[in-house]
């Protein structure tokens, strides 16, 4: 539904050129919710704005619903944009218009007759839970309600694609989840394809099917959300995940940790359980079959869509050869094992 081919964006030229987006390919199939996550300045905003050409790419081609937007005349592009809705972090509602008139705006721009506008706007207000807000002005609404108006407005032209530019970043956690529920609902009911950018893992976790990780203007990793949350491939992916899961060893332990094993040290490991290994009695097997002691420092279980992710930080205590055997055993059973460091055995 959305395809970016080799799309890049450079500001300025020569030595001062800033490569906001390096040549990037992206494909979002019909009906998918695709997230792009990254830190501020990573280029995610440039990426999403290249899709509806609010930002004209320096190179590459953009296709939406089989039509190459980058090849269109300004007039034809305006027509094509009716099929691509967009919502923003700061809502961007017109303060001079009521809720109804804001939602009606895209239809007015398309030249839809007044009577038909009235018939089309009301169901959108119902869908977004704004039935009784018809005549209110944006200044009278809460942040969440404003974003609902923006969503209704974005849907008014019956787009095939919805672009969400940090749509929940200005909202509190509760409102965020209600807006995300609404987006999920729309995706299901209308079969709308959604591309969203965010810096919040929570957003990706709760509604995305697939996620791309962007850094330095490059998509460095792309995966199904289940895979990304259980086994991110890049360093940055792991950083995002760890920051999200807040699972780091206690500071006192980090201070004692050394990078290399030595005599009388044992490893501190982070274990990630997914799939079948979640339900396995691993710890007791390690103790019984490998003959080592396991000291659990921290642990938690997260559900990511239909997948379960268990995480644990533990010390593996025992003679080096047995500890090694235990590590091999864990890897054999599809656990992700990351050795964080080694600590001296307490006397």
């Amino acid at each position, binding site marked *: 539904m959305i395809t970016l081919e080799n799309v890049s964006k450079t500001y300025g030229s020569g030595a001062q050129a800033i490569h906001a987006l390096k040549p990037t390919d992206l494909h979002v199939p019909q009906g998918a919710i695709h997230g792009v996550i990254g830190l501020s300045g990573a280029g995610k905003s440039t990426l999403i704005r290249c899709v509806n050409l609010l930002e004209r790419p320096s190179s590459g081609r953009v296709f939406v619903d089989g039509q190459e937007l980058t090849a269109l005349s300004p007039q034809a592009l305006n027509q094509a*944009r009716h099929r691509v809705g967009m919502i923003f972090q700061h809502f961007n509602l017109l303060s001079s218009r009521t809720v109804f008139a804001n939602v009606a*705006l895209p239809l007015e721009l398309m030249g839809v007759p007044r009577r038909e506008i009235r018939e089309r706007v009301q169901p959108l207000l119902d869908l977004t839970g704004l039935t009784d807000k018809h005549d209110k002005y944006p200044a009278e609404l809460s942040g969440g309600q404003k974003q609902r108006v923006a969503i209704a407005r974005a849907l008014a032209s019956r787009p095939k694609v919805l672009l969400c530019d940090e749509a929940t970043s200005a909202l509190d956690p509760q409102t965020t989840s209600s807006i995300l529920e609404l987006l999920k609902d729309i995706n299901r009911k209308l079969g709308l394809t959604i591309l969203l950018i965010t810096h919040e893992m929570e957003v990706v976790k709760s509604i995305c099917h697939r996620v791309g990780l962007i850094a330095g203007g490059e998509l460095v990793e792309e995966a199904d959300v289940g895979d990304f949350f259980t086994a991110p491939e890049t360093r940055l992916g792991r950083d995002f995940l760890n920051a999200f899961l807040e699972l780091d060893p206690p500071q006192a332990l980090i201070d004692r940790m050394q990078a290399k094993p030595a005599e009388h040290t044992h490893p501190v490991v982070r274990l990630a359980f997914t799939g079948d290994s979640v339900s396995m009695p691993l710890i007791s097997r390690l103790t019984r079959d490998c003959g080592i002691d396991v000291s659990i420092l921290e642990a938690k279980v997260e559900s990511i869509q239909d997948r379960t992710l268990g995480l644990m930080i533990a010390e593996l205590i025992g003679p080096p050869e047995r500890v090694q055997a235990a590590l091999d055993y864990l890897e054999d059973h599809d656990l992700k094992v990351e050795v964080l460091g080694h600590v001296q055995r307490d006397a």
Partner: protein
Amino acid sequence: MSNAMLELIFKATLDTLYMVGLSGLVAAALGVPLGVLLYVTRPGQILARPVTNRALGIVTNIGRSIPFIILMVAIIPFTRLIVGSSIGTNAAIVPLTIAAIPFVARLVEGALNEISPGLIEAAQSMGATPYQIIVKVLIPEARGGIITGLTITVVTLISYSAMAGAVGGGGLGDLGIRYGYNRFDPMVMLITVVILVVMVQGFQSLGDALVRKADHK
């Protein structure tokens, strides 16, 4: 005070209202579009035309920098071309209008500056043409600021119109100078000033009320 004097004051009040009203209307009709043009032709804006923008900016600044009393006599040939005479109330309206157009334009431009660029972007993402953005987004969103600007303009015009006597334009300022000052009649001076004060207060209150009605921020 004699009836003749009261009649003079009455006529001068009407003259002032006529000069201010007509020049204000024409200045609004030309100044608002000029202000919009100054805004939308800026580099990076929806109708970016840097050269045009520069030229308009320079012309506007020249208009803003000429003292009104000089402007009034400097454009006498132009005034004569437009109204057929270089003296009288109508002759005063031409320089008043010319002075007010760039004034309105800059105030309108300032009002448009207050609009969040996000709104323009949102409209573009909906496929709005530049014309649609101006008519459906920029002007309605800046309505409060534009009315504020027009109110300031009217008040400024009232004060400028006091100089209209220099070209025989009449009005309250002229009356105050001729009868109040030149003929040492403090009563006339006082009355003209009071009427001017009431007029300014009235226009300001009207403007404020309209802004309150227009603004939903």
